[in-house]
């Protein structure tokens, strides 16, 4: 786990590699996180993977988050792990919502970490985040004919209302 000064060092060096790639950092609950520009995500991941002294060679997890009231609405999290030092680093790409019917886009990390293949498909399936350059981007868990991105916060909950005594006047009942 890089400590807070170590995280700042990483952030400074990354800014030297590509200016403006790091938007912010935070270090809490013993976890270090880099918030990066989604356009620079491949440069950041490649630098963290290949630079001597960093060498985060293992992508433990890749997942999407929807922070709906927040301004950059989506986040794609890359949980990196250095297996020699047992150090973990979270990289969060802050993705804005393009609005309308268009989907947010980010570069695919499959060429750097082959394990990202299925996990990016899952993020696409549930959040509708398109990964550019992914070899086979289609739904992985929901049926292929499904319409919508069900893990987004503004997606309707689904299900059916259950009749209890407190709402039996409002809920339409099948037997009537």
């Amino acid at each position, binding site marked *: 786990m890089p400590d807070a000064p170590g995280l700042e060092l990483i952030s400074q060096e990354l800014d030297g590699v590509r200016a403006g790639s790091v938007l912010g950092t935070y270090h809490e609950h013993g976890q270090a996180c880099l918030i990066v520009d989604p356009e620079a995500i491949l440069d950041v991941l490649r630098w963290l993977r290949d630079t001597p002294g960093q060498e985060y060679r293992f992508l433990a997890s890749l997942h999407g988050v929807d922070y709906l009231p927040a301004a950059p609405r989506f986040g794609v999290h890359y949980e990196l792990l250095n297996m020699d030092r047992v150090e973990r680093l979270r990289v969060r790409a802050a993705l804005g919502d393009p609005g309308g*019917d*268009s*989907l947010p*886009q980010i570069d695919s990390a499959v060429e750097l970490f082959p394990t990202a293949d299925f996990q990016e498909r899952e993020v696409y399936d549930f959040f*509708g985040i*398109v990964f*550019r350059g*992914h070899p086979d*981007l289609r739904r992985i*868990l*929901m*049926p*292929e*004919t*499904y*319409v*919508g991105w*069900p893990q987004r916060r503004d*997606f*309707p*909950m*689904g*299900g*059916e209302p*259950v009749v209890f005594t407190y709402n039996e006047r409002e809920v339409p009942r099948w037997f009537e």
Partner: protein
Amino acid sequence: MEVKREKLRALAPLEGPPPAPSDLRVRQLRARDLLRGDLEGPELEAHIADSMLTTNLDRVLNWGRANSMFPLTFGLACCAIEMMSIVSPRYDIARFGAENMRASPRQADMIILSGRVSIKMAPVVRRIYDQMLEPKWAISMGACSSSGGMFANYAVVQGADKFMPVDIHVPGCPPRPEALIYGFNKLQRMILGNPDPGWRRRYNADGTEEWARDETIGAPSAEALEAYSAARERLG
């Protein structure tokens, strides 16, 4: 030591008119002679006439169906753990003749929906049910497959009877094995009381066969195709 076997003198009244069936002692002794092989001739005829149960074929068939059930080996979720234990010696559904779980739907005549049915699994379950041969019955086990249960969300079918006929709903989350056995006993009662084993006639669903009527069944909707191709285009 010589065992002396002789016909029972209780048969003496048979020389005249046959005795009343209420003559229990006479029937008991006659049955004993039958087991010994000593009963023959008109006495044998009288014994058979007394002890045969007159019935009809449907009743016999349903009696056999209810007491020799072949469930399908099919688990959907956590309820399947409870379902597995009903064949264990502790609960022992062999007492009711349903211990022989078949691995093929072609050989099974009962399916237990043990767990939530996701919308991706529903066509699979329906196909398995369609592959079972008539007569067939279905038990919906637990809250999830009966009503969606706690999974009131986008991924789970809100009740398995939305896509297939279900005969018995067993409540619980999960139901204990005793509850499932009780539900199975209810199903046995239902089979014994209902002479019509075809589920379409049982549920007044004649004419709802969907095969070969609409060739587009199974194809995605136009809206889904459009959304899908739009997403593919964005990939560049």
